Every structure is written in structure tokens, then in C-alpha cells.
């Protein structure tokens, strides 16, 4: 298969990183927490960040 462009490759790596940091790991309740609304906001930020990654809609279904 053809190699993805470096820019796309970088975005794919970023998706992998974002998915791990935001969706995995132990979820603890801090003093300041991301409310349920806050978590939705993360996806607003993500959409801006990854606007050209066509598969993003799969992330917010998690």
C-alpha cells in the first residue's frame, strides 16, 4: 500500500496519543474536574485539532 504523507502520519500518531491520554488511564475525581460537559468540550477541541482527520466521528462515540 502507498505510504501515508508525513503530515497524515503525524496526525495518525496524534490520534493514537489523544485516544490514550483522554480515554484510557485511571479516571480520578480531582478538585477541579472535567465535568461531563467538560469531556464533551474536549471533543470540540479535538475537532479543531484534527479537523482533517476524516475518522474523528468515531472518537466521540466512545
Amino acid at each position, binding site marked *: 500500500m502507498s505510504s501515508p504523507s508525513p503530515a497524515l502520519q503525524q496526525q495518525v500518531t496524534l490520534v493514537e496519543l489523544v485516544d*490514550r*491520554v483522554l480515554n*484510557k*488511564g485511571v479516571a480520578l475525581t480531582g478538585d477541579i474536574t472535567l465535568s461531563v460537559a467538560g469531556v464533551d468540550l474536549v471533543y470540540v477541541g479535538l475537532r*479543531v485539532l484534527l479537523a482533517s482527520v476524516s475518522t474523528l466521528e468515531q472518537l466521540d462515540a466512545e
Partner: protein
Amino acid sequence: MTAADALYVYGVVRSDTPADVFAGVEGMDDGPVRLVGADGVAAIASSVPLAEFDTDALELNLKDGAWLEQKVQAHNRVLAAAVRKATVLPLRFGAIYHGEDHVRTMLGERPELEAQLARLDGLLEFGVKGLLDPEALRTRLEESRGVEADEGSGRAYMLRKGLARELDEEVRAFAATCAEASHERLAAVAVDARVNRAQSPEMLLNGAYLVEAGCDDELRRAVEELDKQFRSDGVAYELTGPWPPYNFAGEESEG
């Protein structure tokens, strides 16, 4: 740390972890990383300005892609510094506390953290993706059938249409079989394994594998074998890691 600061917690380590594991690692906002210890476990933390992280500011900042990317990178950078040096239990993004006392209280109320850490001792997480090029597979399937009908005739058209449907079905069936075989092969060299949602239609496998630190070559070999086995079918594998064990930090059966 001042009243204008909060403590961002990246993860948890055993309290006997040498502080120099995180020496020189820049946390969020380039702040130095320190360990906030309690009984048995310690939080990996750094000061962050409340101006950026209190509830109102956070809501605004989370909508800012560049801000979020910077913080996500910092979160991973800090935890990744411990890979192969100390066992870390990664926390999810956004655990923020008003000072060390609050962090110690939280650690004290969470005795299960120590057991979760122990479970990850000496283990590394790797990611393996399998990507299918469906066109390459279709071409190979068509060639192996050697079907050729006269161009233009109505019968040939119907044959081609039927064939196209059959090929679609074969591609789908192959993707499912290949994903299962790949995961099984990789999970065999792992202590624990997870299959995550595919990030694109071409992704037939998005797996995470927890392996013993001495066995990462075995996983690498397994990926190379799979690559050899399925390359002619249009499948390419991508190995990433070692990662902090994000996929194995939560409760069982998560992910």
C-alpha cells in the same frame, strides 16, 4: 507553588521510586515534575496556573485544539519518561488538585492504586494496528479466479456485477478472519491484550498489548511474521510503543 497554582497529577508510582526518574522532564507549562508521596504510593505532579486550569478557564481551553495538543503531549511526555525505569499507573487527563494535602488525601482514599501498580510491574504496553488496502486484496482475489468474460454482452455484465458482490463479501470475511488471527497471534506473547475501536475503515485491527519488558522482541517478531503472512493480501502492520500502560490502567474489561 502559590495560591494561584494547582497541582496537575499525571499518574501514580510506588513511593520508593527514585525522584531522578523524572529529573529534567518538563511538565505542563514547562514546570518541574515532582513526586508527592503518601503511604506506599506517590503522585507524579507539577504545578499549573489556576488561570489556565480552574473550571471556567478549563472549559474555554479545552475547545482550543492547540492548547489541548500541547497539554496532551506534556501528559504523555511525563509518563513516558518512566518507561523501562519505573512502573507507572497512568491517570486520565485532567486530575487537578488544590495542593499537596489534597493529593495525599486522594491517595489515602485509594488503596487499590497500589494493587493496580503492582499488576503492571515490569510490563510494557505496545500498540499494533493492521491496515488493509482493500483494492490490493480485490485485485489479488480477481486474479486468483482468473475470471474473464466477453466485454459488452449482457451476460458478462451480470457476471461482473455478481462477481463484484462476491468479492466485497470475501474482502469483509478476510478482514474479520485476519483481524482475529492477528490478535490471537499477538495476544499469545502478551500478558494482557485489548482490542480498541478502529480509527478508520481500513483499520482491521487496533490492538494494545501488555508484554513483559524482556519479551518485546517476541512481540516485534510476531508482528514481522504477520506482516510476511498477510502482506500479499494487502495488509500492513504498524507497531508503536513502548507506551505507559494507558490501556491497562483502568478497571478490568475496560476499553
